[in-house]
């Protein structure tokens, strides 16, 4: 930004700039860009430093510093009764939700893509809008109430169902985009050879839109893995709580936080989503396409 103000006078002086000012301007804007990018890098890396150093430090403090290397801190994880089981709970919630969301969204998206349901687009956009404005926070009271009536308080199934309901509209929307983009000729020829719709779905449509299903699955897992509010509202007691909730209780409850436990647990809890992200971005590229881009 600063380059713009610096170069402004040069421009008004010379409507058709000569070679020298252009070169100077070019260099200045390059320098400005590098400075800006380094500042950005610092801003985004700074909070993450602690996560990289503290788990391996013999005496972890709140300050990020060069660690005296040790792996002993990871033993604290085994000593805590809820640390490892909460990660399993997270896996359970994330896998359950992802399976539900991918299956139901694929079925619905396929039906919406291939059959003219009256009011299809209005329905889809209405639901998408609803899902983006009716988030967990604005409806936490009735969600709590609903879970109470359906006997889903302190039930992991309840958390899975509620999270699925919230993720489904966007998932259907994304998958319908993928389904619309696949040619229908395979399905037509399969039908000529007498395949039933479910067979066509399983053997032809699913393999073709597999990248779309993977995208939605990964997106659902990432959403559930980090979700704090819904399990925080619905699950009582630490036995069923996922890592998001246990993490929060580790630094808010019981006086002085155990930094060995906190740092190693943070790292272990963050690692799966970070690895998933690396995998997805190296395989498919972490770019927008389809639904959001235009």
């Amino acid at each position: 930004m600063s380059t713009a103000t610096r170069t402004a006078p040069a421009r008004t002086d010379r409507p058709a700039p000569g070679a020298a000012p252009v070169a100077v301007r070019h260099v200045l804007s390059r320098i400005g860009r590098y400075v800006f990018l380094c500042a950005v890098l610092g801003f985004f890396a700074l909070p993450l430093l602690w996560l990289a150093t503290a788990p391996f430090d013999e005496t972890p403090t709140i300050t990020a510093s060069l660690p005296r290397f040790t792996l002993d801190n990871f033993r604290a994880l085994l000593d805590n009764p809820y640390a490892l089981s909460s990660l399993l709970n997270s896996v359970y919630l994330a896998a359950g939700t992802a399976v539900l969301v991918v299956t139901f969204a694929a079925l619905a998206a396929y039906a919406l893509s291939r059959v003219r349901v009256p009011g299809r687009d209005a329905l889809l956009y209405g639901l998408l809008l609803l899902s983006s404005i009716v988030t967990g926070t604005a409806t936490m009271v009735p969600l709590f109430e609903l879970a109470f009536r359906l006997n889903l308080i302190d039930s992991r199934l309840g958390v899975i169902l509620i999270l699925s309901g919230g993720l489904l509209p966007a998932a259907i929307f994304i998958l319908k985009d993928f389904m619309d983009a696949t040619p229908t000729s395979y399905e037509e020829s399969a039908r000529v050879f007498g395949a039933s719709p479910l067979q066509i779905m399983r053997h032809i449509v699913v393999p073709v839109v597999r990248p779309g299903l993977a995208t939605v699955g990964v997106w659902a897992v990432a959403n559930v893995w980090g979700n704090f509010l819904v399990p925080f509202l619905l699950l009582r007691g630490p036995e069923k709580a996922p890592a998001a909730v246990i993490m929060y209780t580790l630094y808010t409850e019981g006086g002085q936080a155990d930094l060995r436990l906190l740092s190693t647990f943070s790292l272990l809890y963050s690692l799966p989503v970070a690895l998933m992200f690396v995998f997805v971005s190296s395989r498919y590229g972490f770019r927008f396409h389809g639904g959001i881009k235009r």
Partner: protein
Amino acid sequence: MAPVTSPPDQAVKGRRRATGAAPDAAGLGRARATGFLVPGMVLILLFLVVPAAWTIYLGVTNYRLTGLAAANPEVVGLDNYTRALTDERFRSSLVLTLQFVLGSAVIGQAGLGFAIAYALRDRRGPLRRLVEGFVLLSWILPSSVVAFLWIALLDRDGGTLNALLGIPGTAWLLDHPMLSIIVFNTWRGTAFSMMLYAAALENVPRSHLETARLAGAGTWQQLRDVVFPRIRGHVLTNLLLISLWTFNDFAPFLITAGGPEQRSEILPVYVYKVALSGGELGFGAAISFVMLLINLVIALVYLRMLGRRKETA
């Protein structure tokens, strides 16, 4: 709902491929198609539409978590709403929420996200991957982990920030709670805007920028006259989504829990405290409904602007 949904509908039509709408290639039939739709729709209806409708009903009752009103909630009409509108705590919470959305979403995330995307636009190689990697990392890590990372960063005595700046003893979370969560949320959510603008900037022809530069246009002029008109739709979509997300964001609760003295108590935190900690479910639902209305207004304003863009285009 109809007027709400039509503008994006039109926006998408132009992109839809001709092959997309081929009717029923697999011989699904209307009955089976309905069968395919039912499981998903039941979940959406039960856990999305019903809670939304329920919010409206609960908002006019004096329902409580415990006590007499828990057994026999009474309809109290608009009492909850008049109480909310005259409540000082609600009004200050609303103002804080607007500050939060404006500061961290509209200015912070969209501004920084665009600036990063623009600075990286014709760059490939390690620097780009490094910057993008860190920005994305801050976006994908679980919120309770990043919340603690920020608590540690801003800690009064041992925080890395104070150590770096050489000003130990500055209690960022106590003295500047709003600023802290605004900067936090900017850090947290910039990745989405960055990626969206990076995709959008690829649609701006390089030759147009080159022509403008040769004609002597400065950076601002290039942005205003060449870049912005072409990505206006992306900007509006981006602002719509991040405003809604930020408005409903619960993550600041993990850092400041609304404190100190409710000075960072944005609406989601306020609802949580009133309804679930305080047990006043009816009053909390009324505030939730006000939040839903505000969300709807935000969505309508942006969609209206998006629709106007389509008409003029």
